[in-house]
């Protein structure tokens, strides 16, 4: 490539954490700035969408796209950046598997609007106004992007070349990905990069013994032993159904894995896999006992698919 490679970063339906995750490479940011031209990065630079639209197709060497596709604007930018970029990377779990915004797929637009604009205790909206996609003002028409019923992943919207999991991706993994890109050493397209090929359990140093659980606990209910496997202590830990790469960060901090690195290689549906793993530790020899123990798990879909609902087999709750 002539001159420095051109790189873009974008955020769609995300919390901003993935942009912070890029900053987490710290002083290496200076190396990055020397090695590439950053042509678009809304969180850090003032460049308008029109400027991107004016770029030539495939003129960006790599675009790191974080955030899920929640509304029309997200979708427009996904299509635009796909066209403008040679390599499109789904950076972070929202772009990769839908992540926390994907839990919105348990509701629909109407329910979400009702909660956010009318029902939430901190909202005063006596006229019950809801966002409109266009509105006439004296100064002219204003527009808002349409809000979708269903959150999609980036790959459900446009073709994606690479996937970097994590909520957010860990700094050393981000740097490893950037280095591989700069050296032209990225693997074959379609790969998950910046992560391991095993599960979080494989990276977790906790002692794993006999898995027999007679009582499940939510994280706020007990202070777990710091050395023993969390699942064995009756805490739903997503480690068995989650790709390695974070270094078992949450279990190291005495918290269960929440599943943010997405399914391990070969697993189609992260929630189904975690459900099986959790059921397998239930210490029950009768149907009644098993039913009693698993009923202690408060919210199966929200727990097993905390990050993976939008990319699961069924993708969302049934729309009426």
């Amino acid at each position, binding site marked *: 490539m002539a001159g420095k490679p051109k790189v873009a970063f974008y955020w769609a339906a995300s919390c901003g954490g993935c942009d912070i995750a890029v900053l987490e490479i710290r002083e290496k940011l200076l190396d990055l700035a020397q090695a590439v031209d950053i042509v678009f990065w809304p969180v850090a630079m003032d460049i308008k969408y029109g400027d991107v639209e004016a770029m030539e197709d495939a003129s960006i060497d790599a675009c790191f796209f974080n955030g899920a596709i929640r509304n029309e604007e997200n979708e427009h930018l996904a299509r635009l950046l796909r066209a403008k970029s040679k390599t499109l990377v789904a950076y972070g779990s929202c772009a990769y598997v839908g992540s926390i915004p994907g839990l919105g797929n*348990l509701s629909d*637009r109407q329910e979400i609007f009702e909660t956010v604009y009318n029902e939430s205790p901190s909202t005063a909206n006596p006229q019950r106004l809801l966002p409109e996609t266009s509105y006439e003002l004296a100064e002219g028409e204003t527009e808002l992007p*349409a809000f*979708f*019923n*269903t959150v999609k992943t980036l790959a459900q919207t446009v073709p994606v070349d690479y996937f970097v999991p994590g909520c957010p991706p860990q700094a050393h993994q981000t740097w490893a990905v950037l280095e591989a890109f700069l050296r032209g050493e990225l693997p074959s397209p379609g790969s998950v990069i910046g992560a391991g090929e095993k599960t979080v359990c494989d990276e977790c140093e906790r002692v794993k013994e006999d898995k027999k659980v007679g009582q499940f606990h939510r994280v706020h209910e007990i202070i777990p032993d710091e050395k023993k496997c969390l699942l064995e202590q009756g805490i739903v830990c997503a480690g068995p159904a989650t790709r390695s790469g974070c270094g078992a960060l949450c279990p190291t901090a005495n918290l269960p894995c929440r599943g943010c690195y997405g399914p391990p290689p070969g697993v*189609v*549906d992260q*929630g*189904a*896999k975690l*459900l*099986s793993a*959790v*059921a*397998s530790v*239930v210490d*029950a*020899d*009768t*149907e009644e006992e*098993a*039913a009693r123990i*698993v*009923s202690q*798990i408060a*919210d*199966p*879909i*929200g727990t*097993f698919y905390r990050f993976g609902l939008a990319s*699961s*087999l*069924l*993708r969302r*709750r*049934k*729309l009426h």
Partner: protein
Amino acid sequence: MEEKGFEPRIVAFLCNWCTYAAADAAGISRMEQPLNVDVIRVMCSGRVDPSFVLKAFLEGADGVIVSGCHPPGDCHYGEGNYKTFRRMPLLERLLQQYGIEEERFRWGWISAAEAPKWAQLTRKMTERIRELGPLDWRGRLEQMEIEGV
């Protein structure tokens, strides 16, 4: 959602040793059974990964059955059906959270000697799902893409 002429499609994962034998016996004995059930023989109901059930619903099943040997004791492998009864109550709740009506998913035990029980289950379930109408999960997802919502 009810359509004229709708015929439910039910996918049944049956264990080789008990319920499959029951279904076979029901056929041999010429018991009345609807044509709506597609049987998939598995070696054990404990082999049924929850993703099989989700995939069946995604790919067009209007109902799914998982059935094996009565616990305790009937399982050919000793405790395979224990896995089933530890897993299925969670899957049942998960499916309800997905908005899939309770009656579209049935799991339990039918021994090789209970052919009439199998025949009755298929009749009742088909009848009930005929009332519920098609689930058409993939069609719903495709419709969502078309409408762009």
